[in-house]
């Protein structure tokens, strides 16, 4: 059954990878890994959009798998025609240094452990946590059990905690998977979760390897994989790891666009930002943050960069706007007395206090990873290439604006602040965590410099 589910999802994933390859025909090993990692998110994103369109146009009558297969054949032919006369670089792994091999081996051990933890957690909690089945898989059930009446999942009559307004990328993929195999098998949401964990790991390794070194990429990936919250949320069948992946992908692609002067990255960045908004409401904030970051950082070439970013954003944004026009309003924007809350200083203290505690305990690490990384940076020293400047500024601005948005949400939430902080702050920090790690490992000296042969 697991293989059957895997092969159904493999076609959309390959389609996503082929689209990424068509837009960015780089053939280096790390570039191919990046395109496969992007392909997972893009593929599942496109699949959810196709299924969403099918539900709206003619539910049960349009075969999304057939559309995916046609797309795959078309993309495959285009890529084949373009690639048949190209020379592919052969990467010689033996040219890696001892420290690079060492870190790669540690990374592989960590990957194997991560797989075992994911499997163990999925066996122990096949239905995952309450958010998984009350929000995401509930929405998937509404869609898969009654596709003709799928809009019932957006009913304002649902209890507010069912979050009928939440975007549908994850539930649509789960519902599609269930339809493909003909049963509500828990392995489908597990596999969707696994795909996003895998894609996040691949993205981290590939982007850092492309911009820095293999050793640095291995370390960055190790820190991500070593964060228990990452695998906990990934196996938890919720949308926090998917939205985290899209936030990271969008901001890392913007970094690449601004450092390598390649517009294709901006198109991909816009598309990934749109898919972030199609995954979770926090992604909507990312769209705004990315646009503002582009305006601030790339003012001289604003029109050109915005044009490409918006071109990528267009399709998912259209879906989001349509979805939001039929979905009920968010519970976060109902009945709060904004001015009173903004003027309440105790709320600021409460938010900063919770943030401080998270900095010490984040991620279920046995120690504070943020303090650990601060010491690491002190020892290793910070420096960066000047051509990184715009990319770093854009990424830092995106993280900053996104964090500011989260802060405002906490300030204005109509729910009890302590409850809101306890239930969501750690997840919001996780959503920005890979982008922060990327930024960190972009400016800290790489291990190759320390272990270079004398």
């Amino acid at each position, binding site marked *: 059954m697991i293989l059957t589910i895997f092969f159904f999802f493999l076609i959309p994933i390959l389609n996503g990878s082929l689209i990424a390859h068509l837009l960015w025909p780089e053939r280096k090993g790390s570039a191919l890994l990046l395109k496969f990692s992007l392909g997972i998110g893009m593929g599942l994103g496109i699949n959810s959009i196709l299924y969403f369109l099918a539900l709206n146009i003619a539910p049960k009558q349009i075969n999304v798998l057939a559309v995916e297969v046609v797309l795959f054949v078309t993309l495959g032919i285009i890529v084949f025609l373009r690639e048949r006369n190209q020379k592919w670089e052969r990467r010689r792994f033996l040219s890696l240094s001892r420290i690079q091999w060492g870190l790669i081996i540690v990374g592989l051990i960590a990957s194997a452990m991560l797989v075992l933890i994911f499997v163990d957690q999925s066996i122990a909690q096949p239905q995952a946590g309450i958010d998984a*089945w009350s929000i995401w898989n509930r929405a998937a059930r509404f869609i898969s059990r*009654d596709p003709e009446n799928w809009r019932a999942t957006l009913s304002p009559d649902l209890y507010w905690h069912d979050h009928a307004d939440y975007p549908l990328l994850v539930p649509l993929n789960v519902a599609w998977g269930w339809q493909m195999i003909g049963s509500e098998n828990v392995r489908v949401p597990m596999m969707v979760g696994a795909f996003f964990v895998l894609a996040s790991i691949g993205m981290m390794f590939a982007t850092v390897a492309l911009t820095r070194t293999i050793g640095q990429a291995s370390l960055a990936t190790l820190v991500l994989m070593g964060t228990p919250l990452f695998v906990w949320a990934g196996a938890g069948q919720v949308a926090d790891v998917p939205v985290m992946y899209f936030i990271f992908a969008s901001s890392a692609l913007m970094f690449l666009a601004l450092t390598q002067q390649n517009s294709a990255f901006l198109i991909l960045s816009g598309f990934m930002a749109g898919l972030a908004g199609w995954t979770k409401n926090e992604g909507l904030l990312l769209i705004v943050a990315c646009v503002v970051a582009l305006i601030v950082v790339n003012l001289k070439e604003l029109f050109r960069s915005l044009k490409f970013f918006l071109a990528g954003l267009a399709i998912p944004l259209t879906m989001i706007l349509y979805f939001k026009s039929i979905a009920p309003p968010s519970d976060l924007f109902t009945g709060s007395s904004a001015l009173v809350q903004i003027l309440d200083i105790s709320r600021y203290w409460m938010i900063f206090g919770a943030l401080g505690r998270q900095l010490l305990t984040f991620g279920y690490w046995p120690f504070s990873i943020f303090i650990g990384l601060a010491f690491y940076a002190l020892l290793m020293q910070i420096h960066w290439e000047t051509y990184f400047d715009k990319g770093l500024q854009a990424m830092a601005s995106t993280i900053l604006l996104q964090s500011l948005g989260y802060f405002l949400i906490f300030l204005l939430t109509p729910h009890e602040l302590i409850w809101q902080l306890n239930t969501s702050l750690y997840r919001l920090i996780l959503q920005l965590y890979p982008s922060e790690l990327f930024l960190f490992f972009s400016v800290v000296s790489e291990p190759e410099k320390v272990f270079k042969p004398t």
Partner: protein
Amino acid sequence: MRSVLQKVAVTLLALACLYSLVHYWISVRSLNTITTGNQAVENWEARLEPVKQALPIKRGIVGYVVEWDVPGVKYAFGDLETEYFLSQYALAPLILVQGAKAEWNVAILKPDEIKIWERIYQGKFDVTCLKNNVYLLHRRGAP
């Protein structure tokens, strides 16, 4: 000296990541379906299966009656809220709303609680007792 410290820092960071994973793995291995409450999802689905079969509608709004709808009955809000989530998940794509507000309603009440509820709504609903303290309530006079 600094170079040695830097080498130690890289090594420690890599090992710390492995240690963190081992540490977490141990805690995951101690999890089981009873402590994580996952059996609750399956048990609840089985509990509501008779009402799912008995309901003549497969989509639309269904009322949901529990202890919070019975005056004088003590209840823990958190438990009832979780049970609501479990019921909503089990009965999807039906939409559960609080109280006997629809033509068809599901009640999950103990025998003495349903008696109190019936006294209040005397003659307004046909009450069908299913298994495990689950009741199907049909509003009288509805088409």
